[in-house]
């Protein structure tokens, strides 16, 4: 029985069948990867590039970074502070959701992209205090529209930097390589 199947697979029709199965598997996998990696749909396709090029510092909209764990996502009122004075607010096809949010008093449901799992306790403040800049981890946001992580934010990536920075300093090594620094 088995041998006849094997034999059939070596025939032209069998080979076609093999090809179809193979293609299905590969395209399924590709679709899966794509679904997982598509940047999430944001309420507004926010052009970081334009804002950064105007010279707005990251901390203007994400001020939490210097104070604690989360950098924060701006509320509509923050956007409105500038946008109410700008002509483009009325004309841009991107901005009706903002106008609607202001008019209705509803929030904009931004989808956080740079996220770590629940079992990782990340704190922005010490990273900035240690002299890191936003772009060291978040990449060149000045060239992005919707933010995308420039690399996978996983433990190996974290540890690499922690190792480099603490090398040769036993006290710092204790702190930066301690499991309990991030996991509790």
């Amino acid at each position: 029985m088995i041998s006849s199947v094997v034999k059939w697979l070596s025939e032209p029709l069998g080979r076609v069948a093999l090809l179809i199965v193979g293609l299905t598997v590969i395209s399924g996998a590709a679709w899966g990867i794509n679904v997982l990696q598509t940047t999430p749909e944001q309420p507004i396709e926010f052009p970081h590039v334009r804002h950064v090029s105007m010279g707005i510092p990251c901390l203007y909209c994400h001020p939490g970074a210097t104070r604690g764990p989360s950098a924060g996502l701006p509320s509509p009122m923050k956007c409105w502070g500038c946008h109410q004075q700008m002509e483009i607010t009325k004309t841009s096809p991107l901005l009706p959701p903002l106008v609607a949010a202001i008019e209705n008093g509803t929030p904009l449901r931004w989808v956080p992209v740079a996220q770590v799992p629940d079992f990782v306790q990340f704190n922005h403040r010490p990273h900035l205090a240690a002299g890191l800049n936003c772009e060291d981890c978040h990449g060149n946001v000045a060239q992005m529209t919707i933010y995308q992580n420039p690399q996978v934010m996983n433990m190996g990536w974290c540890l690499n930097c922690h190792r480099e920075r603490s090398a040769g300093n036993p006290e710092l090594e204790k702190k930066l390589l301690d499991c309990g620094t991030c996991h509790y």
Partner: protein
Amino acid sequence: MSNTISRRDFLKLAGLGAATSAVLTGCGPAAKYVTRQPYFDMPEYTYHGESTYYATTCRECAAGCGLIVRTFQGRAIKVEGNPAHPVNRGKTCARGQATLQGLYNPDRIPGPIRQGRAGALSRQVMTWDEALDILAKLFQNTPADQMAFLLGPAPDHLYDLVVELAAHLGGPAPIRFGALSLFEGRTTLIQAAQELFGQAALPFFDLASADLVFSFGANFLETWISPVSYTRGLSTMRKGRDGRRGILVQFEARMSQTASVADEWIPIRLGSEGLVIAALARLVAEVQGRPADSFQEVTPDEAATAADIPPEMLYHLADRLATAARPLVLVGGSALAHRNGLQVAKAALALNALLGNVGREGGVFLSPPAPDGAPHSRLASVQEMAAFVQRLASGTVKTLFIHGVNPLFELPASLGLAEALKNVETIVSFATFPDETALQADYIFPDHHGLESFGYQRVMAGAKEAALSGLQPVVSPFHDTRATVDLLLAALAQAGRPLPYSDEFAFIQSKIRPLMTLAGGSFTAPEEHTFMALFQQHGGWWTLNDMRQQPSSPRGRIAVAMAAPEDGEFYLLPFVSPVLGEAGANKPWLQETPDPTTTVMWNTWVEINPKTAKKLGIKNDEVVRLIGPAGAIEVPVYVYPAIRPDTLAVPFGQGHTAYGRFAAGRGANPINLLLPILNEAGDLAFADVKVRLEKTGRKYSLSRLESRIGVYGEGLEEAH
């Protein structure tokens, strides 16, 4: 086409790996990923990832402990004590800690409901406009004297408003009730102070500075009056003054949690408390060579026999009391729950006077008055509740409003409230949870949870300072609920009989305003808005100096005797569950918190002395039927080594038929065994009840934290 993998593709592949490993290692449902409402207009001081802390007041009981609630992105995360608050000084009890489980309880009433006295929570949701219409019509159409308000012990601002409302409409004043007050013997204590000192105030026992405390029946470490404050008192006493550690002696028929912490536990027979106090008083007087006044007729030997303790013990105790530097006699709870409870309370206060510690550090004071000068509203005694039930039964009440109390659970069924409610045309409940009483209402217009509410609570006991504890919402309402004060004000306005307050906050402000002019407070402010802001920020306003009242010298005669119980096999001692209190049963974490003395979780039990159990052939976990004068309950047995052989004890707190998934159908309610037998002050003489015990032949495994092998040696019998 390039056949090298681009950097982006590589990241995608790596991302797939990351996603897979996130699935594999996932520890979620993550605390961070709880659905949250993003801010529309973020307050300036709120940054994502940083917590905001709000001061408010605990509403799990009426003691009025100050809380600091940690909130994070619009959710209340953790409750801590307010370190500045005079009642609890930064500490909390277990019930206070679990208050968030009430706020986020899955069984809260989500919005106004046309309940129609259905047995279960009705699904007929209304809008608040409809609710308002109904209320307004009720105010318009019900004659004021046919309207009745039944309120709980908290919050005080609602009570104040309803008092004004009733006066405004010309109806009878609202009545307040809470099961804790029933078990504490508050009315009796106040009445005793009134009769003995001529001042109607709750006695304040200064535990912290005493060095020898005799406590009769008062479970002050559990639920009695202000447990956090009294625990601090005990702690201070234990830490000692000048290196001398204070001693606590507890007289109780059952080793309660308080007794278990005491240095000595003296198991006197229920009902003999008055005699023992009187005998001690006589002996102390003898030692000190002073006249014993009303206690002259008491024979110590007879008292000892009645209490079932050796007479030498009584002499010895009296000696210690007489020679102690700062002795204190404390009385409350089951000691007052006898027909002669008022005499017991008076005897204890008189003994304190005899010891010369009235109005002295480490002695007895009277609680400070409310800072705004308003008299503390006394909760109704069972006598007054019985009269109220009579009023309801007679059909003279057309509309009944109920807030903050669950009388169908908290009052003995023998009072006949359930029947009486049928004679009330319309019942409106403002309950937050679907408790037994709320389900019997025609409408439920749910109030906010305490942590979502404005308000204030007068601190009645527990602090030396006069304090008005403030409530403010720490989170925006989780459900479509509405503050009852707002609702009442709006309904009155709609009914065309408005009160002069625009809303709840304005009402509170009008009540706080007089404090601005008082000196010696915890803060001052030049103008009203600042004062209000500081009031919220500090969690209330209190005086900085000691405002306890000095009792005047005692007068009058006291006649104590052995209390005469009803007929029956065993004394019954119902006690409030130290962990659940009267309303904690709907909080899963409190259910799972072990009872301190028995370590039982999630259920009701009856405590039986091992000797009695052996005599009756009863083992642990056997379900027995307790038959009281007014009813019967079935509960599993806990063979408890520290209870008198003639006494059975059952905790109060479970046995709900409603009140959410964690409470309903769990355990039994001992209060339904009781007849409305009262003491002279009108409090329930619940300790004068005797019960019969019957086996049912069934078993129910009680969940205990402790090991029956390790603690009781089960299975290791011959080991020692």
